[in-house]
């Protein structure tokens, strides 16, 4: 008996037609996009309710994070510490994250361009760059080269960045939480990430240029006999090995404790006559302060102060140290000029200069 031929089912043309074809998304002007979003949010805020307000607050916080990442990169660029090029991994990641966030933050009625699902995890996950897929950059519509491999250094660097960024976020939310708890009898807690374990299972091979490549497995079938594991921990710690040279605690930037600046100034001081306070051991009693006032930075002028005090006298039993008897020398170094000795009656502006640097530093380490 011949098998009855079944005519093929008609395709759902209507459904297909109603869905726009998947296309490469392109945000030619992110600012314009944001203005659209702002209008949509304004519309929502015109008739708010508790649920909408809570959702908006959450989304606003997310956007703050993402803009913070972009701002950081831009600042690095301005300081000459990084080069941002269209399609670079950092830029791509930031804009991918922004695009993903725009999608999430857009109100339900706001049309959003279709995008790959990997973007969210790519930005927020620990291994954001190691998520190697064919990535289409939202910035200027540039397409990154699709590759199954990635560089070993990228993996380490991106995990490290993510930890710092996450801790920074945690600090921010910890502070918010602490503020909320200010009226509570329960003392607020601050949270920190004590350790992050990163591990990638991959294949390893050699690049033409002799570097080592990591090849991620697409599925279990490829990992049969040659799977390798690279793992490391990032732990909260005292300053990292080498990070603070010979110091065991972070040194504020207004103090010159090592490097060329200190070497130059100490050499200049060493050439001075050895009158008090330049008695034995003066090097240990010398404090060098950088003037980090913004006006000087703009003028690209360097001013440093050296404070040298004499040996402290041993106070009699039951008495405190008499500092008035301690000789003090103060020298100002402007650029590469010779040191200028500051007379006792002209000390006030130099003290203000020094304490202004301390105050600016204190401000810089205050959580906003």
């Amino acid at each position: 008996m011949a098998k009855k031929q079944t005519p093929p089912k008609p395709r759902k043309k209507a459904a297909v037609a109603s869905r726009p074809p998947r296309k490469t998304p392109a945000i030619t002007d992110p600012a314009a996009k944001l203005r659209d979003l702002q209008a949509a949010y304004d519309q929502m805020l015109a008739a708010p309710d508790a649920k909408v307000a809570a959702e908006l607050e959450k989304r606003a916080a997310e956007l703050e994070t993402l803009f913070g990442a972009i701002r950081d990169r831009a600042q690095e660029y301005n300081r000459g510490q990084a080069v941002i090029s269209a399609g670079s991994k950092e830029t791509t990641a930031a804009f991918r994250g922004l695009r993903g966030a725009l999608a999430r933050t857009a109100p339900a009625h706001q049309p959003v361009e279709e995008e790959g699902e990997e973007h969210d995890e790519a930005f927020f996950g620990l291994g954001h760059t190691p998520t190697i897929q064919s990535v289409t950059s939202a910035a200027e519509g540039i397409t990154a080269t699709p590759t199954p491999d990635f560089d070993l250094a990228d993996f380490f660097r991106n995990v490290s960045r993510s930890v710092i960024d996450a801790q920074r976020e945690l600090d921010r939310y910890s502070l918010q939480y602490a503020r909320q708890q200010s009226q509570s009898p329960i003392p607020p807690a601050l949270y920190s990430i004590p350790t992050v374990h990163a591990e990638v299972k991959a294949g390893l091979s050699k690049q033409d240029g002799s570097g080592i490549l990591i090849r991620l497995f697409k599925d279990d079938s490829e990992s049969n006999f040659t799977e390798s594991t690279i793992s490391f921990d990032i732990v909260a710690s005292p300053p990292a090995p080498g990070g603070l040279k010979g110091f065991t605690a972070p040194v504020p930037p207004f103090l010159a404790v090592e490097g060329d600046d200190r070497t130059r100034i100490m050499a200049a001081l060493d050439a001075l006559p050895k009158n008090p306070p330049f008695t034995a051991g003066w090097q240990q009693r010398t404090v060098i302060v950088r003037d980090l006032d913004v006006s000087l930075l703009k003028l690209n002028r360097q001013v440093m102060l050296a404070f040298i005090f004499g040996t402290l006298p041993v106070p009699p039993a039951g008495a405190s140290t008499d500092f008035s008897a301690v000789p003090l020398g103060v020298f100002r170094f402007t650029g590469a000029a010779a040191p200028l000795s500051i007379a006792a009656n002209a000390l006030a502006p130099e003290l203000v200069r020094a304490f202004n640097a301390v105050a600016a530093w204190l401000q810089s380490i205050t959580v906003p």
Partner: protein
Amino acid sequence: MAAPLLLTDLHHLFEDTATAAMAAQRELDHRSVEAAHHYYSIPRVQVAAKFGLSVDHSGLIALLLGSGHKEQFTHTLQFALTAIPNPAPAALPPDLTPSVTLITEPTWMVDPLSRRHLGDVLALALRAGRCRFAQPAAPTGDDLAREAEEIEATIVNTKDDSIGYLVVRLGDGGIFGGHDGVFLLEPGADLQVTVFDFLTSDQDWTSWSPFAQWLGVWTQWLAAGRPGNPVNSATIPGSFGSIAFLDLAQGLWQAYAAARRTLSGTEPSYRIQNVGTELSFAIPPSGGGDDDTPYISSRVSLQIQQAAGQERLAVRLVAPEYLLVDDARAAFGQQLAAATQAVLAETADPERDAIAAALSDRNRRDAALVMLSYRGGHPKNEFLVVHPAAWNGAEAQFAFTCRIGKHGIESVKLRKHLAENAVSNDEYVGIHNHLHAIRIWEMAGHWTVRS
């Protein structure tokens, strides 16, 4: 274009990993100070790679670390990078070859030279009648003289400082009526030899006691982390099977030395440590259609050890092929877990319940010894399993042989009952074939085979 890593490029793997760690640490330092005011460090990086080996057209060894390769034997490579704050200046290792090499093998193993010597001692003791007899039917002077003549073919399987040496002369294993010679040799004792069995014995059983002592040594050795003793030779073997071992050892050393040089004086400072590889091989290559057997392989490790400011290359026989360890043992264990009924089908009351309980007891299952036990000139997937179990309130052992075919464990035969402290001639075949497997391994060159 990605390509396999050549042995001569191995230092790139070390150096690239270190460079990545250092760059990440610098990133952490920078971002910690600039942005977060939290300090993070990367104290340690570990890499564990599995690889296959291949030789390219120019004779260079290629490490197949990438995906998509399926090797007959899989080897492992590991190393670690440890942050060393303010490292003291350290002497760099020699570039080409290590100045110190340490070669070790399992503590119970007797090297070929000592084996010949012990064979002479045993023959002399037998001829002189300096022996006691564990069997009711004691051998005559002629029997002992015959044993002494045959002793050249002896096997010294194991030693234990508190027991002595178990020496087995492989005869026909009772198959044609002859018995193996089974002796316990205690060179320092007044009566140096205890005879448990001999060629012309007419008994139809053999005592299990000497084998229980021997297997106990292995059990303790495994439990103690498989310690090793230095061997007399300090020469690195040229090859293991088809593995150019000497080249590999030198390549690993040179890569390590190059990485040490590169990392010397860098900031932040990382030291490469725990560099080592474990190689699997079979001598001779497995036959009988079991070319890709996961069960039969000897394991040799290469470690670069750092002690007292000096590095040395340590070569160690981790385990010979006739005793299954690590992934080979685990692979067998998986098969056994699915074959409990096949084993129980071979057991009879009143032991069946005790054996069933033992097979379902994970601790006892893990403590079971799995050994090769085959006939013929090439290793086969045929095994002797000696399994602990509780019997009448005391610890005892049962043993069975089996093979692993396409459908798992099959051809199970019980070779030692829980209730007995002896094995029949028929049951003894399991032990005999295992001793035969040891003999094949030793005849193929022991583990220090040279190219």
